């Protein structure tokens, strides 16, 4: 959230309040983590006219959850009486899995999803760094399918404990 605070100055109580409300809004596809954990919530901005805007970013251009995410943000703002807050999507710079917070990575692992490695994600078919099993930590694993239940995850299998698991791909 530090980036967002820098954008509007450190002590705007409305921004702080909006961030507080939005920091716990879960991702619709992976409810174990919040939109803030995933870096999908870019921050809150105040324009020269004095209007506040929550700025979101899609993970993939065609992410089907984009609309659901905007709806959950709107619902959370409404539930806390925060009306007349704009919601906008910003593509640039493009979202990367490096924006997933350390806390977010830990929550993903606890939920059974192997988190992405750090370092700018380069999609690749082969020669990716080893993915560790979220259950037994073994790195003796293999990719079963490049895509899983969502575009941002691939399907893997642990060769040690034999459990299948999902991996949040580097992107």
């Amino acid at each position, binding site marked *: 959230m530090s980036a967002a605070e820098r954008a509007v100055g450190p002590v705007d109580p409305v921004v702080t309040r909006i961030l507080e409300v939005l920091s716990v809004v879960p991702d619709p596809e992976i409810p174990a983590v919040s939109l803030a954990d995933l870096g999908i919530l870019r921050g809150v901005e105040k324009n020269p006219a004095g209007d506040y805007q929550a700025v979101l970013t899609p993970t993939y*251009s*065609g992410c*089907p959850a984009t609309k659901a995410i905007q709806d959950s943000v709107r619902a959370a703002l409404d539930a806390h009486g925060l009306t007349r807050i704009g919601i906008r999507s910003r*593509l*640039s710079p*493009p979202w990367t899995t490096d924006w997933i917070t350390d806390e977010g990575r830990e929550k993903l692992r606890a939920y059974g999803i192997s988190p992405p490695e750090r370092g700018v994600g380069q999609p690749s078919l082969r020669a990716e760094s080893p993915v560790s099993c979220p259950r037994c930590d073994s790195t003796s694993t293999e990719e079963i399918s490049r895509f899983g239940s969502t*575009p941002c995850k691939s399907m893997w299998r642990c060769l040690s404990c034999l459990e299948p698991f999902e991996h949040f791909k580097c992107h």
Partner: protein
Amino acid sequence: MSALASSSSDLQKARFEHALRLGDDALILAQRLGETCGHAPTLELDLSFANVGLDLLGQATLLLGVAGEIEGQGRDADALAYQRDVLAFRNCVLVEQPNGDFARLIARQFLFSSWQLALFQKMEALPDERLSAIAAKAVKEVTYHERLAASWMARLGDGTEESHKRLVDGLAWSFRFVEELFEVDATIAPLVAAGEAVDVSKLRPEWDARVAQVFAEAKVARPKPMRVVMHGRTGRHGEHLGHILSELQFLQRAYPGATW
């Protein structure tokens, strides 16, 4: 009409056409890939094609949204996708080609994605921040599309006698349509001159080198270039686009303005 006014309106028209071409390429190929859902050779490929199509559909939504903004007539991405007829579509004819067998689909995907990747990398430097942002976002996605297709080019070409033959046939089918990808026609030329569109003719050497590398891995010869009478960029499509649109636009044609 003064020369200046004419030139400025030409440029505005070219901006709209430019965004349409980019958006229609993505939209039509997304629709073609959507047809494979439930029909790919393996479950993993089924998921891959559907997700590649999903990426392209997302790109199409963004690009057609920009086209609508440039046009300024109140048309959004949905209006442009659902309420135009064949002659108004600006996609290249390569993407409207029927899927054919798995090898032909892979050949089309490789030829298109390798071109789209080279294009989007250059588009990141365009002055229109909407287009450069979409391109920067899409480069990450298309990088994977290209690698998926390139890896299957090698597996099919360097596979069995049958898979090799099918890839050669698929390439022969698709390669007839690549010239259009590198053409700067009269509509887009003023935009290229103004630095607002990538000069696609200059992408050729890089694309040729990449294609040669993958053709070598796949042990296939480069098909001879060919000119065809169809020209998607100016609306002269083949018979296939009409059939695609009859499915893509069915709901809005049968129930105009339907929403949910």
